[in-house]
C-alpha cells in the first residue's frame, strides 16, 4: 500500500488487475454459496475456528497498527532515544513492566514493538516489551485468576505466570544483546527507502498517521491470516486427548504442553481456561503452557517471520522454550 518507490521494477496493477481480483472474489463467493463446503464436517470445523480467530484478532491487529502509527507520528524520536540511553540492566525490566500497562493480546504487540525498535528503542527492549505485554497485562492476569480460583494451585499459576513471563521476556531481550535494529528487523518496502514520495511540502501529520496505520495493518494482517489458517487446521484435526498419554511424565509433560500451546494459538486472554482443563497435567506443565503460548504459536510465527530477520525466530523459539522449561521445572520442585 506504500507510496514509495519499489525496490525493483515490478508489474504494476492496472484496472484490469483490479477487475480480475474482484471477479475472483465474486467467483469464490458464488462457489462457496453453491458448493456449501460446510456440509463436510472437518471443513466446517476449520472454517468456524479460522473465522473466529480472525474476527477476534483483526481488531487487535488494527489497535496495534493505530498505536504503532501514533508512536511513529506523535512520539518525538528523542523520547525513545532517552529510553535507549538507560543502562541495560534497567532497560529490560522497564520494558517488561511497560507491558503491564498495555492490555492488548499478542497480535497487537508485534507491530508496536516493531515500531518502537524502528524509532530508536533498542531491539532487545522492544522485543522484551513485545513478549511481556501479552502475559503480564492485567486482563490476562485476571483471567488466570478466574480460571484457577477454585484450585489449590491458584497463586502458583497467577504469580508464576507473571514472574516467569517477565523472566522469559527479559532473557530473550538479554540474548538479543546489543544487536541493532538492522540486524533484527526485516526491511520493509515502506521503510527501506529514504526518498519520500512527497518531498516538499511534507505531508500533514494526520495523513502520515493513516498511511503508517494502513501499512502496518495490511502488513500484519496478511501474516495473521496465514497463521490463523495454520492454527485452525491443527485445531481441526488434533485431538486434545492425545497429549494425555504423557501427563505425569516429568519434563516431557512440560515440553508437550508447550508444544500444544504453540499449535493451538490461543489468545492470551483466554488460554488459562484451556490450560485449566488439562487436569491430568501438573501446575508446572500448565504454567509452561501459559507462559510460552502467548510468545510462540503458529499465528505469531507468521507475524514474526514477516517482522523479523530469518535468524530471529529460531533464537526466540529456543530461548523461550529453554527458559520456560527451566522455570517450570523450578516451579515443579518448589510447588510440587
Amino acid at each position, binding site marked *: *500500500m*506504500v*507510496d514509495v518507490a519499489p525496490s525493483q521494477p515490478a*508489474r*504494476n*496493477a*492496472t*484496472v484490469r*488487475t483490479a477487475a480480475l*481480483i474482484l471477479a475472483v*472474489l465474486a467467483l*469464490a*463467493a458464488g462457489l*462457496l454459496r453453491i458448493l456449501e463446503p*460446510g456440509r463436510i*464436517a*472437518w471443513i*466446517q*470445523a476449520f*472454517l*468456524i*475456528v*479460522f*473465522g473466529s*480467530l480472525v*474476527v*477476534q484478532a*483483526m481488531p*487487535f491487529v*488494527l*489497535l496495534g497498527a493505530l498505536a504503532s502509527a501514533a508512536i511513529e507520528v506523535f512520539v518525538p524520536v528523542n523520547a525513545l532515544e532517552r529510553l535507549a540511553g538507560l543502562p541495560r540492566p534497567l532497560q529490560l525490566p522497564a520494558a517488561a513492566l511497560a507491558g503491564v500497562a498495555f492490555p492488548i493480546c499478542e497480535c497487537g504487540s508485534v507491530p508496536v514493538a516493531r515500531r518502537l525498535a524502528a524509532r530508536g528503542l533498542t531491539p532487545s527492549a522492544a522485543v522484551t516489551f513485545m513478549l511481556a505485554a501479552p502475559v503480564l497485562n492485567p486482563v490476562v492476569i485476571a483471567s488466570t485468576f478466574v*480460571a484457577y*480460583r*477454585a*484450585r489449590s494451585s491458584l497463586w502458583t499459576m497467577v504469580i508464576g505466570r507473571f514472574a516467569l513471563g517477565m523472566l522469559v521476556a527479559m532473557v530473550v531481550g538479554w540474548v538479543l544483546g546489543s544487536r541493532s535494529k538492522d540486524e533484527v528487523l526485516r526491511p520493509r518496502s515502506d521503510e527501506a527507502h529514504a526518498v519520500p*514520495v*512527497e518531498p516538499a511540502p511534507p*505531508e500533514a501529520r494526520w*495523513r502520515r498517521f*493513516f*498511511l503508517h496505520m*494502513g501499512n502496518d*495493518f*495490511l502488513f500484519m*494482517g*496478511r501474516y495473521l*491470516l496465514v497463521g490463523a489458517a495454520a*492454527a485452525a487446521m491443527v*485445531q481441526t484435526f488434533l*485431538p*486434545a*486427548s492425545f497429549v494425555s498419554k504423557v501427563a505425569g511424565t516429568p519434563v516431557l509433560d512440560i515440553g508437550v504442553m508447550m508444544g500444544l500451546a504453540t499449535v493451538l494459538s490461543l*489468545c492470551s*486472554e*483466554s488460554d488459562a*481456561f*484451556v490450560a*485449566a*482443563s*488439562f487436569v491430568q497435567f501438573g501446575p508446572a506443565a500448565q504454567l509452561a503452557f501459559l507462559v510460552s503460548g502467548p510468545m510462540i504459536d503458529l499465528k505469531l510465527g507468521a507475524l514474526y517471520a514477516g517482522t523479523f530477520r530469518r535468524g530471529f525466530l529460531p533464537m526466540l523459539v529456543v530461548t523461550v522454550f529453554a527458559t520456560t522449561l527451566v522455570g517450570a521445572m523450578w516451579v515443579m520442585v518448589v510447588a510440587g
Partner: protein
Amino acid sequence: MKDSVAVRGTGHARSHGGASPRTWSPGRVAGGLVLTAWAALFWLLLLTGRDDLYLSTRTSWVVPVGAALLTAAAAGLIVSARVRSPRPIGSREAWVMGLMVVPVVMILALPPATLGSFSASKRPGFSSAGFSGTPDGGSGPLTLVDVAGAQYSKAGEQTLARRAGEQVDFIGIVTRFADTPAGEFLLTRYIVTCCVADATTAQVRVVNVPPGKFQANDWVEVKGQIYPLGKQVIVNATSVEAVTRPARPYLTP
C-alpha cells in the same frame, strides 16, 4: 499510465504553494477498500447477531469496537488518499490485498454454522472455577457449565453428587460415537471463553432416548433427572425434544 488504477484528480485537486496537484494514490485507495471490506464484515456480524457464532459474550464487545475502528481507519485512509506523487501499486501487492478480503467473502457467503459433533472428540472438557454458584451444595437450577466444571474437581464431584435425582433441563447437540448404544447419546454444548478457538466441551450422557429419533448434530432439549457417577454424569431423560439452535449457541463460563 494508460490503464493504471491511479486516477488523476480533476478540479478538486488543490495546489499547495505551486506544488503538483493531489491525485488518488492507488495504494491508499486499495488499502482503504480492504479496511472497508473488513469494516462491512464487522457491521454485518453486529447487526445480524452472527458475532455469537464466533465469540463469547465476554468478548462480543470486540465486534462493535472493531466495526467502529475499522470504519474510522478506512475513512481516514481513503480521505488521506489524495497525494501529490502517487506511485502505482504492484500487481503482486494488489493480489495480496485481494487475498486479505477472502476471509470476509468466506464468512459472508457461508451459511451460519456452529461447531458440531465432529469437534466434540477433538476438544478438551471444560474445567474452570469449580462448581460455580453453588459452593455449599447448592441451590438454583443446574446448568451444563456447573455440571462440566464439577466433573474436574473432587469437591465439585461431591457437591454435584448431593444433587443426584434433581430435575434438569439442558439444551445441546446430539453427539454419538461408534459404540454409543441406540437408546443413548451424549449431549454436548461448547463453552467458549474468548472465541471458538478456545472452545471446551460440556457433556452429559443421556439415557432413555427413543432409538433412531435423533441424529448427530441435532439440537435438542433434554429434561430428566441427573445422576452423577464420579466423572460421568448421566441424565435419565423424561423428555427429549428437537429445538432450533439457540441464539447464543455457545455457553460462557
